[in-house]
């Protein structure tokens, strides 16, 4: 049965109106009218008929239902184009899953796998003139061929009798392939490498050789167990997932020979040397770090009675191929990291930051198989919106950054923070227990072929043969049910340990948990599947979403499974934890894999890499060419600075009622903020800040400065929001182009040196700011090689800071508040323009970039916080992209007040170039501060010894006026500032 549901009348079809605008934005005014219809196909379910369909699916007030007849004919009788978009077979379809659940509930029967429930979306158009070639183009804009199909019917086709199919192709039962045994003995080096490539293992020759060595030694043991001498495919796949760059961070663990001029140095693990050691050093004076590095997220103290945790991840490769699916699984995936932290934390807020190619990229420059940056933006954004909103977790901070280097692989950062009581059921909540004899339980979604090889795939460059199975669609509602159930089960003490199923699926989650107990026996035949036909190895490594793995004591399993059933959550015992020292994998009665934990987790050979640093030379161009006002307005309108309000308002940023500083502030709720402030407990006025720092443009100059400035940007925003200088923690997320020297990467040694220098910058800044790194992630293969062209991302480090604000009432926003109040600039302004947005707007490089001095900045930030605590400050904005002039314009716009600023006496040289540097240079560690009327003296007294400059008073007018002594440099009205700043988003959201 085919059911089409339309709006009762066209004027009520908000979705249709939006689609018409969307198409107009890329193709011009070709659409006269558009309507959107929901299509359901239900077949072979006993007792289901048209009457029940009406009862269940129809909103009789606003909708029309059409059973086995065309809905478009009624809602848009004069249509001349229909496009119907449906998911390809095997792709998760949450809507159809809900429809199935509701049908069975209405029939009062337990759901079974029988029958067919599919959903699709139909778009009906009245186009101006004959659809012709535009039909294909419109259909192309409405679907992603990787996961969806679009069927087109024109009016003339319809009249010739063309109709949409009675149902769409779906997976039918296949007989599952068995276990294959693989011969490594006798293979040449080339053959070993070929085997790794063909099976998408992403294992190097050295690693393949180590694996062969293991099997040589394990010969007798394996014969005794009845296993083949060589690996089974189950074992080899498990090793490949566990040893993937994604899971084992091989480059960060490598031994690196670093050369810089005549200096030589050997670094034993970047992670141990620069990240772990930094945190260990700081931990000596910080009592609040509860669990760092080893769990799914870093855990720190909140208020003595509660701890908070945070994690950020990237989902770059899947997002390049399917931005919607990649982003939605990114956000619900990182939520699971929080659910899997300690004994299980509750997600409290999300963050989301996207790095994309230039919006102005011509369509013909987009590599085949990839999407235009604006399309990636629209779909990745929609993915985060759906994932976060439907999960009930507010998105409180984020960003958007455009650079040509992201056109091949976009960077999609998703972060989540969580909270849990310090003690749960009498134990420290940040610890898990997994003991021999505990049952291994999988809860949540079922296993399908989606997301096979995600971990190894993300450890390789994108090319035209990239596996489509690595793409998945998230199902936030299944995960929301799972999350609610887990928190309830936690508080009832029904399980002992928990972790999420992310990259590598069960092979990673159970393989990691087994390290605590000393072993695990996994029974693949017990794992619930979405459909039959999966090979045993596929069951083990599938990354199907919405799943958690748990250790449950045998005496609690009945109660655990019963609660799961009552909450509509599928939970299954899939094995048991042991202390045998082995990961043993069974399929039915047959042992299909047995690996020692020692080899699985410690058998990976250490990589040995070379790095060579040579400072790039950078031409010092002439900074002149734009009038200050013209430059200011161009900067405000630049996609990297302009308002993203229309995008941000699509996120629910307030659910959970904890928002203190929202994404917007000011008299009309449209000024920017430096980050979010969130109050996680109703019974405490203590708050959390959440801020970001990211400066890939500086990587062209020196990644050391890039890293220092990223740390400074995130930490200074924390300070600007009113955060405590000594209670902040950071996440480091590295996204690098492949830094391993090879024929495909002839500049690998330089890129690795860039990584070394970034790590050093990260360390130095974190030590200066008392900012421990509590968790992080690296993504090391952000290259695309398509159509013979290699596009590599600029080395990028995202620093996410979460800190404490002692009392929410002390939080600061950026908008000017009191006419007459003095405005100060804190920090030195050397005026260098290299790496700045001004460079971008002007279109030429302008020599060296600014240098940070974190030691001096740390002292200044502390004094500033003292002034905040003393109640002297009414607003604060950090100076970042666009420099001082942009920051001042934003403060004026937010408050709808003017400013009379005088730069006389501020650093930098004389003349035009000096002024340009003052106005638009992006020296770090600077804050614009509005001091409360009458508090100027007290403020200056506290700030003494650090660089500060009184700019002038806030005015009640609507003009930003900047002078230098007698000479007026810039005069801009609020209306011009607003128009420029809000110009970009209009193109983004049709």
């Amino acid at each position, binding site marked *: 049965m085919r059911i089409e549901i339309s709006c009762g009348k066209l004027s009520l*079809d908000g979705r249709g109106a939006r689609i018409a605008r969307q198409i107009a934005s890329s193709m011009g005014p070709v659409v006269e009218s558009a309507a959107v219809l929901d299509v359901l196909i239900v077949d072979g379910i006993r007792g289901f008929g048209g009457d029940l369909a009406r009862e269940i*699916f129809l909103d009789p007030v606003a909708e029309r239902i059409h059973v086995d007849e065309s809905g478009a004919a009624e809602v848009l009788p004069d249509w001349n184009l229909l496009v119907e978009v449906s998911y390809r077979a095997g792709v998760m379809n949450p809507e159809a899953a809900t429809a199935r*659940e509701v049908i069975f509930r209405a029939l009062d029967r337990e759901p079974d796998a029988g029958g067919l429930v599919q959903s699709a979306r139909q778009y009906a158009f009245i186009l101006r003139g004959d659809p012709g070639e535009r039909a294909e183009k419109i259909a192309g804009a409405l679907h992603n061929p990787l996961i969806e199909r679009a069927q087109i019917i024109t009016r003339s086709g319809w009249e010739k009798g063309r109709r949409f199919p009675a149902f769409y192709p779906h997976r039918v039962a296949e007989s599952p392939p068995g276990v294959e045994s693989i011969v490594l003995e006798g293979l040449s080096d080339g053959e070993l490498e070929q085997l790794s490539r063909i099976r998408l293992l992403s294992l190097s020759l050295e690693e393949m050789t180590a694996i062969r060595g293991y099997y040589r030694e394990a010969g007798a043991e394996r014969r005794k167990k009845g296993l083949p001498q060589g690996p089974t495919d189950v074992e080899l796949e498990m090793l490949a997932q566990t040893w993937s760059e994604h899971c084992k961070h091989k480059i960060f663990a490598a031994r690196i020979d670093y050369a810089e001029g005549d200096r030589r140095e050997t670094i034993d693990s970047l992670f141990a040397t620069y990240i772990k050691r930094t945190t260990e050093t700081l931990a000596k004076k910080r009592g609040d770090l509860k669990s760092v590095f080893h769990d799914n997220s870093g855990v720190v103290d909140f208020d003595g009675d509660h701890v908070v945790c945070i994690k950020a991840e990237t989902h770059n490769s899947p997002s390049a191929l399917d931005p919607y699916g990649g982003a939605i699984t990114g956000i619900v995936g990182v939520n699971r990291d929080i659910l899997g932290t300690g004994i299980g934390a509750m997600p409290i807020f999300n963050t989301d930051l996207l790095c994309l190619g230039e919006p102005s990229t011509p369509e013909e420059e987009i590599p085949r198989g990839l999407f235009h940056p604006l399309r990636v933006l629209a779909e990745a954004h929609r993915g985060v919106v759906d994932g976060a909103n439907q999960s*009930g977790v507010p998105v409180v901070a984020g960003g958007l950054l455009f650079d040509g280097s992201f056109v091949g692989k976009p960077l999609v950062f998703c972060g989540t923070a969580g909270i849990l009581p310090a003690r749960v059921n009498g134990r420290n909540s940040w610890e898990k227990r997994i003991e021999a004899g505990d049952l291994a339980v999988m809860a949540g979604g079922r296993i399908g072929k989606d997301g096979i090889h995600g971990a190894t795939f993300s450890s390789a460059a994108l090319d035209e043969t990239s596996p489509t199975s690595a793409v998945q669609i998230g199902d936030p*509602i299944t995960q929301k049910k799972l999350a609610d159930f887990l928190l309830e089960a936690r508080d009832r003490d029904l399980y002992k340990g928990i972790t999420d199923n992310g990259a590598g699926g069960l092979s990673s989650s159970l393989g990691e948990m087994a390290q605590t107990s000393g072993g695990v026996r996994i029974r693949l035949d017990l794992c619930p599947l979405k459909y039959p036909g999966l090979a045993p190895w596929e069951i083990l490594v599938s990354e199907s979403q919405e799943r958690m793995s748990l250790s449950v004591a045998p005496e609690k399993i009945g109660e655990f499974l019963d609660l799961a059933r*009552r909450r*509509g959550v599928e939970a299954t015992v899939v094995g048991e934890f042991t202390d045998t020292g082995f990961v043993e994998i069974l399929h039915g009665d047959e042992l299909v894999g047995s690996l020692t934990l020692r080899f699985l987790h410690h058998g990976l050979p250490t990589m040995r890499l070379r790095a060579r640093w040579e400072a790039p030379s950078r031409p010092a161009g002439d900074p002149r060419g734009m009038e200050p006002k013209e430059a200011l307005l161009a900067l405000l309108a630049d996609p990297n600075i302009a308002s993203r309000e229309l995008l941000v308002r*699509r996120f629910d940023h307030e659910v959970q009622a904890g928002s203190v500083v929202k994404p917007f502030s*000011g008299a009309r709720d449209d000024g920017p903020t430096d980050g979010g402030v969130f109050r996680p407990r109703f019974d405490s006025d203590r708050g959390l800040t959440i801020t970001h720092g990211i400066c890939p443009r500086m990587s062209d100059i020196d990644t050391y400065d890039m890293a220092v400035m990223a740390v400074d940007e995130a930490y200074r925003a924390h300070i600007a929001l009113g955060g405590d200088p000594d209670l902040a923690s950071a996440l480091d997320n590295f996204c690098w182009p492949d830094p391993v020297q090879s024929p495909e990467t002839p500049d690998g040694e330089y890129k690795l040196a860039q990584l070394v220098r970034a790590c050093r910058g990260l360390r130095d800044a974190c030590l200066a700011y008392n900012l421990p790194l509590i968790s992080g992630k690296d993504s090391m293969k952000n290259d695309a090689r398509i159509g013979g062209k290699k596009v590599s991302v600029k080395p990028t480090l995202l620093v996410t800071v979460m800190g404490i604000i002692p009392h929410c009432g002390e939080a600061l926003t950026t908008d000017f508040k009191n006419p007459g109040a003095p405005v100060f600039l804190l920090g030195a302004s050397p005026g260098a323009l290299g790496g700045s947005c001004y460079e971008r707007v002007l279109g030429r490089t302008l020599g060296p970039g600014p240098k940070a001095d974190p030691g001096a900045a740390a002292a200044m930030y502390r004094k500033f916080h003292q002034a905040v605590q003393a109640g002297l400050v009414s607003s604060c904005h950090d100076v970042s992209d666009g420099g001082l002039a942009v920051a001042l314009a934003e403060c004026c716009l937010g408050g709808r007040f003017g400013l009379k600023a005088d730069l006389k006496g501020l650093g930098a040289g004389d003349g035009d170039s000096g002024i340009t540097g003052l106005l638009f240079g992006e020296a770090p560690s600077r804050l614009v501060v509005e001091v409360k009327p009458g508090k100027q003296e007290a403020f200056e007294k506290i700030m003494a010894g650090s660089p500060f400059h009184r700019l002038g008073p806030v005015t009640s007018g609507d003009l930003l006026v900047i002078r230098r002594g007698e000479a007026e440099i810039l005069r801009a009205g609020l209306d011009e500032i607003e128009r420029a700043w809000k110009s970009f988003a209009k193109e983004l959201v049709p």
Partner: protein
Amino acid sequence: MSSASPRVLVLAGCGISADRELAEAFRLAGAAPERVHLFDLLEDPGMLSAFRILALPGGFSFGDHLGAGKVLARLLASRLRKEMDAFVEGGSLILGVGNGFQALVKMGILPNLSGDLAPEVSLIHNGHGLFENRWVPIRANPANHSPWIRGLDRLLFPVRHGEGRFVAGSPETAEGLLRENRIAFFYDGVNPDGSEMDVAGITDRSGRVLGMMPHPEGFLFPWNHPRWTRGGVPSVAAGRTIFENAVAHLRSANRCV
């Protein structure tokens, strides 16, 4: 059961997401809220009679698949209609916010002009076709005598919805809503979603059932206000009043009994 602290059943589970703050809103108002999973309530509809307030929070029940609140409405209507009728008849109160409002409308409890619980109005995709989170001014209808909105005038609350565009099914329904003063809240100056007659919330005939799209439980503390750093925001957040009204009403009703 203490009459001073009326028990509130706050529905949870299955994609409902604003249940914690809605429970907190009632707790701050002096009531005794309990978060109850939808499936537990469906299994034991009789439990409702032990409560004095039923609160349906915001969120995305069942992912809003097939239409916002539709599945939730269908499940409640099939298992709980009798109990909910008796609940309101007996003087108890029902509140639906956001997704909860959508469910009440789709199960016909609101506005129920005809008295036969047939759906009469709907909340459909916003006119611009997008989800939106912003604070909007609303004003209470002085002619509506619902205990929930007593003493309220102009308020600023957040809206956070993609399907909140109010439509009356027919001119007669629109006329009936006006005639019987069933509109509780109007959008005041900014209509965020294209709602007919600027409707932001409505009540049933008794006034004891209130549904609204803006989120009063999103404004329990002065810091929730988008402009609190600019001063002038009262120290007691306006969102609390609706919940305090409900508790005060039940307390006085108990005294009368």
